């Protein structure tokens, strides 16, 4: 009985002490953290995010629970995050296209300035690809030449962004293309492999064909040349002033206290050096791991939005809008 009382006393004083400590120094996080993923379970963001969450919970000393909020290409999760008053206890792990191009291509209840971008942790590897043994080979220059002489070449698009980029390129080069929609790498791959379509956008599927050479890359849509296809030029190298680089980034609402953002950023930086995170990212989903700090990633995203706005203006509106 006495022991029990003593135990209770120690426990309650410890709790009181803990509470006081929180009020003064703010040892974020003092309770479980939620990582929201804007895609369904089983997708590449989800696979990567779950490993990241495990590592973050070790770094932060609190459980990091993963919640999927799929819909609108990650947009549903961001719309909810924009209204969150959770001071960093809830953050979204997602792709930059949702926040850069999303608000431009569709009506959204959020925009770039509603969030802070804690850090970027992975670079996308999207590209414009083609198939084997095409009459124009596997170089972008030859394709453009061939397309000028043969109007009606076909291109398979997956996102509003790559569609806008290809229409801009077509305008610049004076090409007449047939642009067919398709969904995801699983929809694009058979079109390219069977030869029904001449060239296509690919988010990352081509990385899986790097060894067999069945899906050569014509253009890298990342900031640098692709790791697995170093011969393909980037957009600026090919003469187009566009930065469409995809970054996987952790986002919190604008009003999150600096101390919380810093603590999350530290944990994310540590995660980018963790072999488990590197393995799942570089070997399973085939994207390079990099740590990009808040200032830099925010500036990149802002530049991208301005670039896209200029592009839309030059095209006289979004493609598909009559």
């Amino acid at each position, binding site marked *: 009985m006495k022991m029990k009382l003593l135990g209770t006393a120690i426990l309650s004083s410890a709790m009181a002490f803990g509470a006081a400590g929180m009020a003064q120094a703010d040892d974020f996080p003092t309770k479980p953290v939620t990582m929201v993923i804007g895609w369904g379970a089983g997708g590449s963001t989800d696979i990567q995010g779950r490993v990241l969450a495990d590592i973050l919970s070790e770094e932060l000393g609190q459980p990091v629970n993963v919640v999927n909020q799929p*819909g609108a290409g990650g947009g549903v999760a961001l719309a909810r995050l924009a209204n969150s008053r959770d001071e960093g206890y809830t953050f979204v792990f997602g792709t930059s296209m949702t926040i850069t191009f999303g608000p431009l291509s569709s009506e959204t209840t959020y925009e770039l300035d509603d969030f802070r971008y804690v850090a970027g942790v992975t670079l996308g590897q999207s590209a414009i690809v083609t198939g084997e043994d095409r009459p124009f080979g596997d170089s972008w220059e030859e394709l453009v030449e061939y397309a000028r002489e043969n109007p009606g070449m076909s291109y398979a698009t997956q996102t509003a962004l790559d569609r806008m980029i290809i229409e801009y390129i077509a305008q610049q080069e004076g090409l007449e293309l047939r642009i067919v929609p398709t969904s995801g790498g699983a929809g694009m791959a058979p079109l390219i492999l069977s030869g*029904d379509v001449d060239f296509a956008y690919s988010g990352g599927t081509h990385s899986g064909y790097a060894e067999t050479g069945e899906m050569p890359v014509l253009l890298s849509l990342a900031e640098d040349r692709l790791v697995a296809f170093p011969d393909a030029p980037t957009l600026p190298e090919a003469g187009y002033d566009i930065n469409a680089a995809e970054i996987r980034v952790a986002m919190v609402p604008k009003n999150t206290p600096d101390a919380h953002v810093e603590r999350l950023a530290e944990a994310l930086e540590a995660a980018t050096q963790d072999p488990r995170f590197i393995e799942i990212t570089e070997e399973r989903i085939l994207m390079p791991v990099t740590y990009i700090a808040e200032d830099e990633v925010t500036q990149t995203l802002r530049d991208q939005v301005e670039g896209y706005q200029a592009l839309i203006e030059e095209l006289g509106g979004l493609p*598909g809008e009559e």
Partner: protein
Amino acid sequence: MIGFDAILSSFAAALHYESIAIILGGVLLGYIVGVIPGLNRAVAIAIAIPLTFYMSAYAAIAFLIGLSKGTAAGSAVSAILLNAPGEPSSAATCLDGFPMARAGKPRKALKVGLLASVVGDLLATLLLIAVAIPFASVALKFGPYELAAILIFALVFIAGMAGGSFLKGLAAGGMGVILGTVGLDPETGAARLTFGYAELMEGVPILPLVIGTLALAEMFVQLDEYRRNKGASVIKLSHDKADDLSFKEFKATLPTVFKSTGIGAFVGALPGLGPSVGAFMAYGLAKRSAKDPDSFGKGNPNGIAAAEAADNAVIPASYIPLFGLGIPGSVSAALLVGAFMIHGIQVGPLMLRDHPEMLFTLFSGMIVASLLMLAVGWYGLRIFAKVTSVPPHIVIPVVIFLCLAGIQVQGYGTFGLVTVFAFAIFGYFLKKFDYSFVTFLVAFIVTPMLEMNLRQAVILSGGDIAILLNRPIALAFVVFTALMALHLGWSGYRQWRQKRLKASGN
């Protein structure tokens, strides 16, 4: 193509103890679901999909296939002991199973049913393996033209074959098509029928739709029936030696089993017909070709064998169009497409190319599931006989809880709950007014594929329909579709006219 060593290693993967444990779990759960009259295969798969989120893609699919196979075998138990089929498709098993059990031979009846189930399932699985791969390698060469034509043909065929009136079939399919077009237009990005909900931009989420229309609605129907008829007597199993199945008796049913397996596999491979049709067709044929047709319906073991072999053969055979072409021909196949999608794999001929090891491991997993089915059914006979008496007032609330929990797991929040209830009400009326469920679900699943391929075909051809002349396969299917629609429309009109003549004649 894949080499022999790869096939062997995929078999090894399926025989790994973890994989066996997962398949066993699926078969066991399926068996229980099959035994309980109120629960059917579609309900079980719909609520099991969320359970598989944290499994690997292979484990998830193997689990679900084990589950659907288990239900087909388990449903014989309640058909025989309760005279209430655990699955609608076991209705034919009741015809001879229940009289035989009432005559004091319940154990014999159960064992005949089990062995016929296992043989039918195993043979049809082997057929699937033999046929799906050559099928898929041909289908790999199909482009948007062929796929669009085949998908349209499959839809019309299912609407016509799924039973009931062709018009109701078309209506059910139409509803599926409309729901399938919700979301962003694949070409222009315009939002269609989303009513401002961002959640609908990528289409109606499949899980709330499936759980609502299949599982939750079924529970409403069950509640409805439970109010009306309570209590049915269960036949108890004896320890009598005379009530055991001898090898000689089993051998006597084998010819029926083989014939019925053939019928079941044929019916299964055609999209839309389903296991009930297969079971009744096989039963009818067994009766007609028997020396003593009068003994059928009074406890002839051949009647049980025919119904069960065909019922179980339909399931693996219905995966032939699924793995070969990516077209789901049955409700459970349509649900598997959803499960594959959730795990990021597009089912169809491309699997053979991109994930051959996965395909072979699945096939070997299916064989393992057949054998486990035998073991589970044989040794669990007495336990499952007891499960038949689990009362609906326990089953129904548990299933409703699992439905709602499944939606929450996927993270749809309040939106998911509202959607699931809306679809439950929709599904309830679909069932009450006898609209074809397969047609609705398959149309919903297939529409985005169809739309995409059709649009690709139109854009690639530059809108020139003459391109079909260079695409003989696509052309053939367009012609088949037209003939099929004409035939179904004409026979529907004749039936309607006969009915009217009769009505005015009286």
